[in-house]
């Protein structure tokens, strides 16, 4: 998916991206933790008398069709998206790294079988695979996390496998083998640390994708279910009132885009920092 060609205007931009991306992701993380404390209203406090009120001092982002405060819902919703993103990327990371190292380091039929299986899974367009899995598991936060995790394993595994194949022929790996280090020891002490930067960069970019997919599934009604204030679900509901209350689709959308931007900048910045070849 990614191509190793000059992707950023200048190398100096790398550390700038890294800082901005880190700040955005950090800001959202804080919101996810203390969101329900600092939100001015509860996520599901209804006030039907002020339904569909435009943004005002009392409701900075306006209110939805049930009179719920949009600002509070957007803030409290951070938790769903960030949980889904971090848990699914972490799960995909563990499974993908294990499979990738196994497929790259081991030789023989098992490695070939794993590599073949990974390549087959990669031929299914990712959003199609997510929807298929989510339809099998059922809608909800758990189904969402599982579907995204499974879908993110193959690209991660392929990336790690490629890196491991490169590293395997390095002299220090040969040397470690010559002095009798076990396979597991080599993987843990030499392969994994050297593949680490590639993995971190990929994980950050995958997190941006996960935010996108979580929102898309919510919008389609296959993700976190209402009345939970999940951003994609809120966009789906706000769509009905676009004529009267366009801010209902504006605020959650900006929240989603900004978080994706944060993860993307973080990934790009990390890549420029760690991998001078692409800078």
């Amino acid at each position, binding site marked *: 998916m990614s191509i190793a060609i000059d992707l950023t205007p200048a190398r100096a931009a790398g550390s700038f991206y890294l800082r901005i991306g880190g700040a955005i992701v950090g800001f959202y993380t804080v919101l996810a933790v203390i969101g329900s404390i600092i939100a001015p209203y509860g996520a599901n406090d209804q006030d039907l008398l002020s339904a569909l009120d435009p943004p005002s001092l009392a409701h900075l982002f306006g209110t939805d069709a049930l009179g719920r405060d949009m600002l509070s819902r957007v803030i409290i919703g951070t938790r769903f998206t960030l949980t889904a993103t971090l848990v699914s990327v972490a799960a995909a990371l563990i499974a993908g790294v294990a499979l990738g190292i196994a497929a790259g380091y081991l030789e023989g039929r098992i490695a070939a079988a794993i590599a073949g299986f990974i390549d087959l899974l990669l031929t299914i367009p990712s959003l199609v695979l997510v929807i298929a899995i989510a339809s*099998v598991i059922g809608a909800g936060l758990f189904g969402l996390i599982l579907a995204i995790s499974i879908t993110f394993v193959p690209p991660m595994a392929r990336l790690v496998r490629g890196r491991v194949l490169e590293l395997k022929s390095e002299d220090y790996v040969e040397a470690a083998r010559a002095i009798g280090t076990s396979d597991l020891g080599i993987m843990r002490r030499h392969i994994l640390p050297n593949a680490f930067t590639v993995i971190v960069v990929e994980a950050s970019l995958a997190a941006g994708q996960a935010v996108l997919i979580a929102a898309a599934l919510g919008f389609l009604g296959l993700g976190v279910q209402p009345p939970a204030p999940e951003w994609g679900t809120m966009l789906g509901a706000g769509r009905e009132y676009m*004529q009267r209350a366009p801010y209902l689709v504006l605020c959650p959308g900006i929240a989603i885009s900004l978080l994706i931007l944060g993860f993307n*900048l973080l990934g790009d910045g990390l890549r420029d920092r760690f991998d001078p070849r692409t800078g």
Partner: protein
Amino acid sequence: MLRFIAVRVFRIVPIVAGVVTIIFLIFQLVPGDPAVLMAGPMATEEQIATLRHAIGLDQPIYLQYWDHLAGLFTGNFGYSLTYKGSPLGEILLRLPATLALAATAIALTICLGIPAGVLAALNRDHAADYAISFSVVALLAMPNFWLGLVMISVFSVDLGWLPSFGFAGWRSVIMPALALAARLIALIARLTRGVMIEELRKDYVRTARAKGLPFHTVVVRHVLRNVLIPTLTVIGLQTGYLLGGSIVIERLFAWPGIGDLLINAVGLRDYNLIQAITVLFTVGFLLVNLVVDILYVAANPRLRHA
């Protein structure tokens, strides 16, 4: 060349068989009894039994698998609960809408993404480059369906210029195709810019300039050709994204295509139809890449014996 094409076509067969098997296995994981789930909470025992028989769920799994494989080759996509039989007719009816949407999105990507990248590369580190690079970063962060919502809000609700849903004439394809293509346009602009900057540094550019060719002639005659090849390949690889993205976009714009059908099927727990569409999208993606592969080699005779 013919031999090469035959080999590539032949090589895709086991991949299709493998991926169809994986998708079949995924749908075996539906928790509980699929017949009970599909029949709904109001169904009687008898109705459930009839349904189970109609779908072939009362057969052993290897027979179900065999029926599924054989069905795909004969155009029988299995029993669809929604259409009380093979959904092939409905799929064929909706295919043109999805193809039209994807083709328009690809055309927009080529017409907007490549020129934007070229423009940015030619004005490297100047205002145009910064503006384009900034737009790329912004577009890559926006979900396509949100972009679609914003466009509906501006161009349909406020200005009343474009229809916001359905499939009525060329005007109705503009917004869905733009929303779908936005991410791809950004990716291609970024890629084209990168490749172009690399190419402009190469020796042949200096040689051509040294023998007196004007700069724009060098760009049009030599550089652009070398830029187009990797760019078009990546567009081919990104059709997987286009197919996935079209699901959400079709839903948003009530576009009567396959993606919209898929979400209907998910809502109705029509697992056979979901499975059929998953297979269809995957095979479509594989076929597009086969074509791109062949075109790529046709354009590069050096690769033919690789």
